[in-house]
C-alpha cells in the first residue's frame, strides 16, 4: 500500500458543468502519488460552520505534469455546496490517495462503463486510463433530463458514448438498464463497471450477475475517517463487513450481498 498523505492543494478552477455539478481542479506544489480510477480523496471543508468531518470525492482527472487533480462535485448538501463556492486561489486540504481502484481491463476486454451524475468522474478516468481502443470502450450515461447531463466532448476519443434520460430529452428515454445498449448487447462486454446512484448500480449489478459478466461498482457509503480506522463505512459482503474506504470503494458485485 502506498504511503498516504495529508496535503494542501490550490484551487485553480471551479466552474459549473451543469445546474448541479461543478468541475474543480486542484494543484499541488509537489509530485503526486500514483492515482488510479476509483480512488478518492477526502476533503476538509473550510469556512463552513456546520460541517465537521471531511467529505470524500472520487478522482476524475490527474495530470502528473502539472501536479493537478480534478473532481466532479455534485451539490448535495452543505459541504459539497461550500466546495463549489470556494474561490480560485484558495487552499483545500486533502487526504490521499484513498481506497482501491477498479480492476483495470486487459487488452482483449470490451468494457461497458455505466455512470450517472458525479458518478461520471471515475468512469471517465477509467476510460482514459484503460489503455483500450476507442471501440472497446462504451460509456452509457444516465440522467434525469438533458439539463442534468454532463457532456465532456474531450472524452469522445476514449470511447463511444450512449445517453439515457428519464424524460427522454437526451439520448434514449428511460433508465440506463432500459437503454438498448444495455438491454440487447450486454453480453458483448467482458467487463462492466458502474458508478452512480445506488439504485442504478444495483440494477446494473443484477443484470451483469445474471449474465455472469464481470462487474465492479464503486460505493459511496457514509464515511468518517476514509482510511480504515473508524469502521463506519462498512458494507456487508461475502467476506463479512468490509470497509468501503480501504477494501473498496470498488467492489466486485459477486462479493456484495445485493
Amino acid at each position, binding site marked *: 500500500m502506498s504511503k498516504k498523505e495529508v496535503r494542501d492543494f490550490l484551487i485553480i478552477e471551479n466552474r459549473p458543468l451543469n445546474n448541479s455539478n461543478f468541475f474543480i481542479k486542484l494543484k499541488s506544489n509537489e509530485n503526486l502519488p500514483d492515482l488510479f480510477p476509483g480512488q478518492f480523496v477526502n476533503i476538509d471543508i473550510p469556512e463552513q460552520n456546520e460541517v*465537521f468531518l471531511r467529505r470524500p470525492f472520487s478522482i476524475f482527472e490527474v495530470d502528473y505534469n502539472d501536479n493537478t487533480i480534478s473532481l466532479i462535485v455534485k451539490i448535495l448538501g452543505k459541504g459539497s455546496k461550500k466546495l463549489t463556492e470556494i474561490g480560485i486561489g484558495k487552499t483545500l486540504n486533502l487526504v490521499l490517495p484513498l481506497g482501491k481502484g477498479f480492476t483495470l481491463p486487459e487488452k482483449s476486454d470490451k468494457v461497458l462503463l455505466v455512470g450517472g451524475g458525479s458518478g461520471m468522474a471515475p468512469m471517465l478516468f477509467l476510460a482514459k486510463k484503460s489503455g483500450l481502443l476507442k471501440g472497446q470502450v462504451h460509456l452509457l450515461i444516465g440522467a434525469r433530463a438533458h439539463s442534468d447531463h454532463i457532456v465532456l466532448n474531450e472524452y469522445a476519443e476514449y470511447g463511444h458514448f450512449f445517453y439515457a434520460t428519464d424524460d427522454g430529452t437526451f439520448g434514449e428515454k428511460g433508465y440506463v438498464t432500459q437503454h438498448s445498449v444495455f438491454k440487447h448487447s450486454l453480453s458483448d462486454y467482458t467487463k462492466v463497471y458502474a458508478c452512480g446512484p445506488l439504485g442504478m448500480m444495483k440494477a446494473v449489478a443484477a443484470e451483469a450477475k445474471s449474465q455472469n459478466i464481470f462487474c465492479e461498482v464503486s460505493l459511496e*457509503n457514509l464515511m468518517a*475517517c476514509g482510511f480504515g*480506522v473508524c469502521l463506519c463505512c462498512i458494507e456487508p459482503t461475502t467476506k463479512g463487513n468490509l470497509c468501503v474506504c480501504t477494501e473498496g470503494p470498488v467492489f466486485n458485485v459477486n462479493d456484495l450481498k445485493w
Partner: protein
Amino acid sequence: MVNLITKIKDLELKNPVMTASGTSGFAEELNDFYDVSLLGAVLLKGITLHNRDGNLYPRMAETASGMLNAVGLQNKGVDYFIKHIYPRIKDYDTNLIANVNGSTVEDYIEVTEKINELPNISAIELNISCPNVKEGGMAFGISCPSAIAVTHEVRKVCSKTLIVKLSPNVTDIAEIAKAVEGQGADSVSLVNTFLGMAIDAEKRIPLLSTVTGGLSGPAIKPIALRMVWQVYNAVKIPVIGMGGIMNATDAIEFMLAGASAVQVGTAIFKDPFIPVQIVDGIENYLERHKLNSVSEIVGALQI
C-alpha cells in the same frame, strides 16, 4: 529540551499523547501516514472474545462539532487478533494498549487472560463504557457494583498496567472512578462517548441503524474536561483524559484539569497527523512557559 516522559503507574510513555481506541485501528493505518513511534501509545481497536460483525449500516452521523457512531465493536475476536494482527504490529516502537470488551464478566476475564500473555502489549484498557452494544459494555460502567465486579475479576488475571475506561453517561463519574480504584485499577481513562441520537426530519427515521449511538468530538469537550477534573480530585491513580481533543491547547487543558496523559480520538478522522502535532504543541507550550517537564502541568489549574 523539555521532558515529555509520562508515567501511568509502571508504564512509561515517551510522551503523554495516545490515540483513542476505535479511532486508530490497529496502528497500521496511522503508520501509513507517519511513524507511530512518535506517539506515547496507540490504543488498539476494541477486542472481544469472539468475532463480532458490529451493527448494521448506517453507523455514523455528523452532528454540530461532533459525530455519533454505532460501530458496535466490530472485530474478529481475540484469537484472530493474537494470530494475525499482533505479529504484524508488535514491533512498532510505541506502547500498544489493548482495549478489552465483553458481554459478561467471564468474557472480560478470558480476553484479558489471553492479551496478558502478549509481551508487546503494554497495558490493558478495560472498556466498561461502550454504548453501542446490547449486552455488557456501558452497562458495566454506569453502576458501582458492576464496575467493581468486573474490575475485581479482571485485576486478578491482569499483570499488566490496568486502565479502566469510564462512561460519562452517569450521575457521578468520580464515584465510579473511586470504585474501580478500590479494585486495583492502575489508572482510569475518560470519557468514552455520550449516548446520543440523530434524526432525519424529512424521512422521519433515525440516522443510525441502532437509533442511538456514541457522541464524540469537540462538542463534548467541556463535559469531558469537567469529568476529568472531578475524577482527578477524587482518586490518587493517574487519570487519562479525552473527549474532543483537537489540538495541543485542548490537550493541555485536560492535563491542567488533572490528566497525566491524553487520548485523541475523533480528531484523527479530521487529520491523522493531529496526535503528532499535539506532541509538538505540548513541547512548545512547555518551552514557552519555561517548564522542564510535562508532569508540571498535570493538575496545575489554579482555582
